[in-house]
């Protein structure tokens, strides 16, 4: 479904240049859920943004369903296949657009018809009732906003969903709701996920395989069983896993 | 308060662009150069009635055929530079003005002087200056013309080193002076002030005022405040209400003199409506002469319906027209005119605009709509010179102390064709002046007998009133407000510019 080879991403020019991602390769087959973990600033979000064309300065090979993409231009067709959910639900909704406006604009852009019916369906799918349709973002809680963002991503009926820490801005209780929703959607629609998170337990709950990032490089790719059994290949990953288990009071 | 030997004048002097008498044509500029230079003949500020008197020319002789005038130069007069004033200098000054062909040179060239013949026709011979004319002009016309600033006598030797190309020192003289007048130019800061210093070696005695400072003060209210506070001696641009306001102060007096400026209404004969004689006639009755004279023009303009201003030879005091809307209406109706729209372009000066608005109101009563368009001076002039102003409302100022100064522009139009681009007012209003009237105007310039000449001008004006589409409305009255202790103030009356040399300040 998604194939990334030798991806480099940088920001700025010459001596201002920041190499955010350095030669990352991975491959996600259809229907899989793939996790990207790593500490803050390790380049996780950057990978997703490069794939979707939100960043121009990258090199390497990226192909979706065998179709290569280039630069920052993407066809309409690409967006019908690939969609993204952002980390911060407070920043990813236009403050002056109601839920209805957000969804209907998306549907219209995708060239869909019977927009009203579809909006109702979408809201249902993400567990928001009809009552939310005409609300503005400031009338929504974080979890509800994230649902709207997911609904917007689903509107194009994509096959691949890129999730950039979809729950890190949310409460634990709301996180559970969103994670359940994502899991349900995947099951119902056969979606493919690439999910970024710094929370290993979330990734372990959602993904089949995961890659550990550090300083723009991919330290290793492992499956969830390896993760749970603390058998990561690299020391770094093991440290990371250990630390995320909790705090041990020094004595 | 101002020092005893310094005269401080608040005036609007932002129009000065040059000190060169051959170029200067603006009121403020001439007000200054009048005091820097002397002319061959001049007025006596203490006795204006007497007319021109000998100045740098001690005496003159007119040839029998009235075509040659010989001046004898006064002896022992010195320029500010210390050079003696010679006939040579006088000849060079006049030649220079003709050849430069700027500003008011027509005052000289109207006597047949051209750049080609001027070296021949204006000549120095020892202490004599000989001027040859192409026609036997009335010698009063010629001598009156020589009182004009353009005929000032310039220090040739001082100027020559500053000549650039064929500019006759125009550039240098633009900002410097080389005269023999009662004052020297101490400083000129454009839009700010001009300072004159008395010339100790003046042939007619050093002026009492050691310094004269003319400050540019735009606003009437500001001038008034300065005067009331004693920071200036004279305020020259007070509005009528401000004059009324300061008049009551016992430290201030108002000196009133008629000036040679007419406020007139020009009706463009290219305009279909305005070329209708009935409309021309009716318009003369649609001006609320008395109303305006008594209100916003109060004290500063008087009704004057003739082209020669009071104070000039042959001036007429006949003011036959009155404000009579009914009469105007009748005239219009008789001619079958019940409505119409006309435009006027007026300069953005309060008096003009108010006159226009009053006219607008009374025309409305007669069924005529007047559209007023305010513009800057330059724009109005531009349009007027292009004959594109249907109704012109504005001023005309005389150029020299002879009735011909106005008659030649109001009543002469040698060729009314649109391409020739004359500057005469008649041409600008597209009025083809009847041959006969033009002939009379020409003839009057040649009439040697003063009384006859006067009568001729009265006749011309009579006829003018009857037929002309150019309607004089008011004559300017100068109201200069000053401290009581300022004596002998003279702003030049109707015929000349301001003189400072005779001014004294008492206690």
């Amino acid at each position: 479904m998604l194939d990334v080879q030798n991806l480099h991403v940088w920001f700025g020019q010459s001596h201002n240049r920041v190499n955010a991602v350095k030669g990352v390769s991975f491959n996600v087959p259809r229907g899989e859920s793939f996790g990207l973990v790593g500490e803050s600033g390790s380049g996780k979000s950057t990978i997703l943004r490069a794939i979707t064309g939100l960043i121009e300065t990258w090199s390497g090979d990226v192909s979706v369903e065998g179709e290569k993409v280039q630069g920052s231009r993407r066809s309409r067709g690409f967006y019908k296949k690939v969609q993204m959910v952002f980390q911060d639900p407070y920043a990813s909704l236009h403050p002056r657009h109601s839920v209805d406006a957000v969804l209907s604009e998306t549907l219209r852009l995708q060239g869909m018809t019977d927009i009203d019916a579809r909006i109702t369906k979408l809201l249902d799918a993400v567990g928001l009732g009809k009552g939310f349709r005409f609300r503005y973002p400031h009338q929504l809680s974080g979890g509800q906003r994230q649902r709207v963002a997911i609904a917007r991503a689903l509107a194009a009926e994509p096959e691949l969903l890129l999730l950039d820490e979809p729950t890190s801005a949310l409460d634990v209780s709301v996180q559970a709701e969103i994670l359940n929703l994502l899991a349900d959607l995947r099951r119902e629609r056969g979606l493919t996920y690439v999910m970024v998170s710094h929370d290993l337990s979330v990734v372990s709950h959602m993904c089949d395989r995961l890659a550990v990032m550090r300083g723009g490089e991919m330290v290793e790719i492992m499956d969830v069983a390896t993760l749970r059994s603390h058998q990561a290949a690299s020391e770094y990953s093991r440290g990371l896993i250990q630390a995320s288990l909790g705090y041990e009071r020094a004595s | 308060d101002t020092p005893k030997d310094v005269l401080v004048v608040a005036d609007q002097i932002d129009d000065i662009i040059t000190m060169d008498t051959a170029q200067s044509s603006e009121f403020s500029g001439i007000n200054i150069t009048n005091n820097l230079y002397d002319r061959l003949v001049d007025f006596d500020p203490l006795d204006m009635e007497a007319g021109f008197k000998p100045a740098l020319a001690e005496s003159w002789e007119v040839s029998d055929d009235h075509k040659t005038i010989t001046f004898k130069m006064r002896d022992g007069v010195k320029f500010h530079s210390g050079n003696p004033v010679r006939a040579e200098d006088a000849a060079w000054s006049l030649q220079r003005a003709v050849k430069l062909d700027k500003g008011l040179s027509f005052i000289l060239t109207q006597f047949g002087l051209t750049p080609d013949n001027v070296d021949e026709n204006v000549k120095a011979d020892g202490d004599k200056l000989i001027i040859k004319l192409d026609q036997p002009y009335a010698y009063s016309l010629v001598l009156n013309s020589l009182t004009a600033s353009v005929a000032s006598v310039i220090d040739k030797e001082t100027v020559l080193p500053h000549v650039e190309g064929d500019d006759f020192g125009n550039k240098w003289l633009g900002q410097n002076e080389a005269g023999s007048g009662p004052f020297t130019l101490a400083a000129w800061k454009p839009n700010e002030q001009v300072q004159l210093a008395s010339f100790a070696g003046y042939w007619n005695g050093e002026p009492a005022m050691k310094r004269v400072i003319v400050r540019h003060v735009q606003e009437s209210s500001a001038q008034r405040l300065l005067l009331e506070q004693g920071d200036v001696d004279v305020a020259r641009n007070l509005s009528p209400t401000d004059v009324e306001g300061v008049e009551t102060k016992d430290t201030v007096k108002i000196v009133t003199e008629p000036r040679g400026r007419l406020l007139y209404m020009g009706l463009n004969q290219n305009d279909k409506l305005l070329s209708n004689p009935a409309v021309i006639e009716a318009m003369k009755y649609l001006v609320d002469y008395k109303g305006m004279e008594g209100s916003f023009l109060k004290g500063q303009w008087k009704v004057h319906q003739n082209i020669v201003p009071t104070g000039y030879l042959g001036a007429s005091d006949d003011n036959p027209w009155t404000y009579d809307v009914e009469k105007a209406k009748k005239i219009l109706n008789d001619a079958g005119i019940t409505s119409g729209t006309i435009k006027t372009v007026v300069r953005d000066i309060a008096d003009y605009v108010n006159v226009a608005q009053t006219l607008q109101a009374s025309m409305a009563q007669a069924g005529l709509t007047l559209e007023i368009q305010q513009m800057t001076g330059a724009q109005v002039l531009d349009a007027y010179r292009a004959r594109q102003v249907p109704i012109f409302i504005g001023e005309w100022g005389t150029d020299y102390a002879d009735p011909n100064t106005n008659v030649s522009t109001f009543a002469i139009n040698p060729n009314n064709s649109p391409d020739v681009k004359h500057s005469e007012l008649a041409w600008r209003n597209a009025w083809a002046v009847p041959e006969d009237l033009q002939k009379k105007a020409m003839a009057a310039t040649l009439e040697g007998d003063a009384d006859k000449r006067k009568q001729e001008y009265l006749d011309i004006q009579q006829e003018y009133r009857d037929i002309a589409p150019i309607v004089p409305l008011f004559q300017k009255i100068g109201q200069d407000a000053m401290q009581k202790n300022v004596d002998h103030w003279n702003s030049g009356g109707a015929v000349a510019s301001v003189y400072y040399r005779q001014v004294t300040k008492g206690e």
Partner: protein
Amino acid sequence: MSEPLLKVRNLKVTFPTRTGLVDVVRGVSFDLGRERLGVVGESGSGKSMTGRSVLGLIRPPGKVSADKMELDGQSILNLSPREMRKIRGRKISMVMQDPKFSLNPVMTIGAQIIEAYRQSTGAGRTEAKRKALDMLAAVQIRDPERVFNAYPHEVSGGMGQRIMIAMMLAPDPEILIADEPTSALDVSVRAEVLNIMDRLVRDRGMGLIFISHDLNLVSQFCDRVLIMYAGRVVETLAAKDLHQAQHPYTRGLLNSLPRLDQPVERLAVLERQESWRDEEIETQFPGGL
């Protein structure tokens, strides 16, 4: 059992809004001894507001009221600004939730720490600088000299949080209110920072109010936990008992966490009940120590 350092009874914080008055903290009571008191609860439950109201930091038009708010037996409710200033910093200090916005962007980090230190101790410049560098080192900043001269935008969020902690601990306060002090830290650094606070509580007898989202962390780090919901404390527990909590809200929070060691097919979801908002709860003072 010694007298509690801080005693709060029936604390209320009220904000006027377009739709009327809103109580964001509704009758919170607790005691703080020389201990680690955890405060957990979902976002918006009033944790930060509780912490801030102790220091009189609620901005107008917000209003604070309480039956009692005592520091070392002295009431600190409705103090004059001048008296309040004497308490801030040197007696009670607070680490703000968001390090990005909580440091003055145009002052160097060193200057800010020195300012805090000198304000409450009146120490000299050189001494203050030494102290500042010590504190930076203590919070595991690798290159204290460089960071001392750096501006806030030049450090990462994690460093910012540690700097905040260093700054607030510099005057040796009796009580530290730490509002999610470790949320921006990578798991690794987090342990070090917690160790510092831990040491202060144990060695110096500081009182610590530790506000956090992270139930696991709180249960492991703190002595006692207040669980807040909608502006009220719904349950108070000894930290070690957190996993045996009785209140359905607390249980719900716990269950909704995915766990690395115990995979579940589907996460439990918290079913909020209206009754939690106002039901009577009995709180024991001074807690279970």
